[in-house]
């Protein structure tokens, strides 16, 4: 039985760069079945099995503890559950996959530059339109936390699965909370990020689960991986 499960993104640039990180650390990841296979191994480490999973599943499994260590975006951890971040340790940001979760409004809202403006608009909105201001997003938990920090209570979330940026023009929502790396998709859809509207700066991160119940041997294996990647560890973590 293998001791530790390491999860890496299953495709694209995230997969390439994740494997490169481990390769540089002298831990080459093999994927014997090719791109269609979901399992692999670390050369020279029989006690570590590798799973190739979509990034959002990696986040969920880390939070649940069914994956011990993995690479995924911090934004996806936050979105797994309201207190999901408490179930993991962010070991190391890896310097790729950067993207921001942001609040974006129609650029034509010339009277709105920051969250404070938005709180006024939200307070006025239901009086004028007879409904709440609608925010389209797949980042439900991050949105609720951020809006609560800015004391905005008069709004409603519209869950969106894909193409959130189209929600204002389709009429599904008035503004959006979405992830963006260059901002060009937002711009192309006539949307503008509020000046203090960056909710989270996310990037691909090596993350360790706290929910897993490790034996001392497993603990040593985790330490070995972190050490190879060059991460200093606190004894008590």
């Amino acid at each position, binding site marked *: 039985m293998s001791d530790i499960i390491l999860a890496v993104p299953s495709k694209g640039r995230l997969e390439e760069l994740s494997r490169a990180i481990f390769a540089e650390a002298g831990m080459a990841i093999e994927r014997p079945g090719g791109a269609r296979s979901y399992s692999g191994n670390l050369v020279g480490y029989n006690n570590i099995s590798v799973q190739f999973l979509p990034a959002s599943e990696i986040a969920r499994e880390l939070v649940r503890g069914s994956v011990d260590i993995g690479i995924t975006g911090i934004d996806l951890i936050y979105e797994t559950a309201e207190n999901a971040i408490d179930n993991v340790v962010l070991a190391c940001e890896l310097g790729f996959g950067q993207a921001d979760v942001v609040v974006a409004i129609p*650029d*034509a809202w*010339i009277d709105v*530059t920051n969250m404070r403006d938005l709180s006024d608009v939200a307070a006025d909105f239901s009086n004028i339109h007879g409904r709440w201001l609608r925010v389209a997003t797949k980042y439900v938990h991050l949105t609720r936390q951020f809006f*609560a920090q800015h004391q905005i*209570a*008069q709004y*409603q979330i519209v869950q969106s699965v894909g193409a959130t940026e189209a929600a204002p*023009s389709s009429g599904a929502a008035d503004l959006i909370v979405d992830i963006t790396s260059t901002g060009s998709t937002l711009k192309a859809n006539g949307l503008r990020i509020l000046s203090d509207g960056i909710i989270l700066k996310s990037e691909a991160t090596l993350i360790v689960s706290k929910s897993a119940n490790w034996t001392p041997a497993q603990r040593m294996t985790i330490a070995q991986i972190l050490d190879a990647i060059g991460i200093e560890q606190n004894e008590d973590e």
Partner: protein
Amino acid sequence: MSEANENRNKLVELIKQKATLSDVPMLLPANPFFDLAGEEFGRRLLLTNGVNDVEYCLRPEFTLPIAIEFLASKKTCANIGYIGKIFRQRANGPSEFLQAGIEFLGQENRNETLEQMFDFAVSATKVYNIKPQILLGSVEIFESILEQINIAKVWLPRIRHRFGHADAMSRLLERLSDPHGASAGAGGSTGSLPWKEDELISVISDQMIAAGLSLTGSRTPQEIANRYFEKQQLNASTVPSEIIGFLQNYLNINGEANSALEQINILANDFSLDLQAPLNRLLDQIALLKNEQGLEEILFDASFSPALDYYTGIVFELKNNNETLASGGEYNRLLERLGAATQINATGCSLWIDRLEGAENE
């Protein structure tokens, strides 16, 4: 029969003396709760999806489903009681609570109805041998102050919306008193904007059309232009500091009810505000709580209100050792919000039975 059951039966008897017991389903459509109370309440719902993609929740409270059913019944008045489990998400996972209560809907005499409600709440605590503290608040005094003070109209709904959110309110008041805190200038990437209203509206309209936005479905060009000009004006003039100070002083009033109301009276006289009607109403109720209900600890907190803007008159909580055992008040805007043609008198109170049982005195 166990003592807990015996006491619950006594509660049911109390409810039946004043109301008809309703049978609200445990599984309810979730949308009405989101529509009414927004995300702050919505995050606490236990949700599930039906095969028809309708979102349902486990009953998080009774008032809303009872109000919806009342409207559908077309009755003009009804007294409706309930007892049963409610379900809410909490920081450490989902929880269930036992709640009981009454809603008086459409009753004409507001004072008598409120008196009946106090009688119900205090009688319920007597079942458990508890002599509670009562905390009173008044939405109508605060709304009457907002109607009378001299402050730019645009701020009124924004101040009202923060009543009951102490933190948000104090931040807003700080912001109103600080001219440099206002966010100046225009957003948007349009470059310099015209000063004439009709030109500005046409610039905004063009931009919205280019982005594929409906001109009527969300904020309209007129609405955006209005707030844009309003912001320019507000940046030039701030709210006078004595008005901010007055609101802060008022919201800080908190203590024994009669002396708190006396302080409000003095403050109102200094500012030439007429708060006699809502103050007298409260004084009458305080006298009844003392003389009829025998309550000794009666407190008033000017900033106390449920953070939901359909509350309208007097609101209250019964407490024991800082724990809320019952909460209620007048919410005449709820039925209107749900589609009634006008405001309809409504007074309600819910009891936290688990807490009453925990606080029971032998």
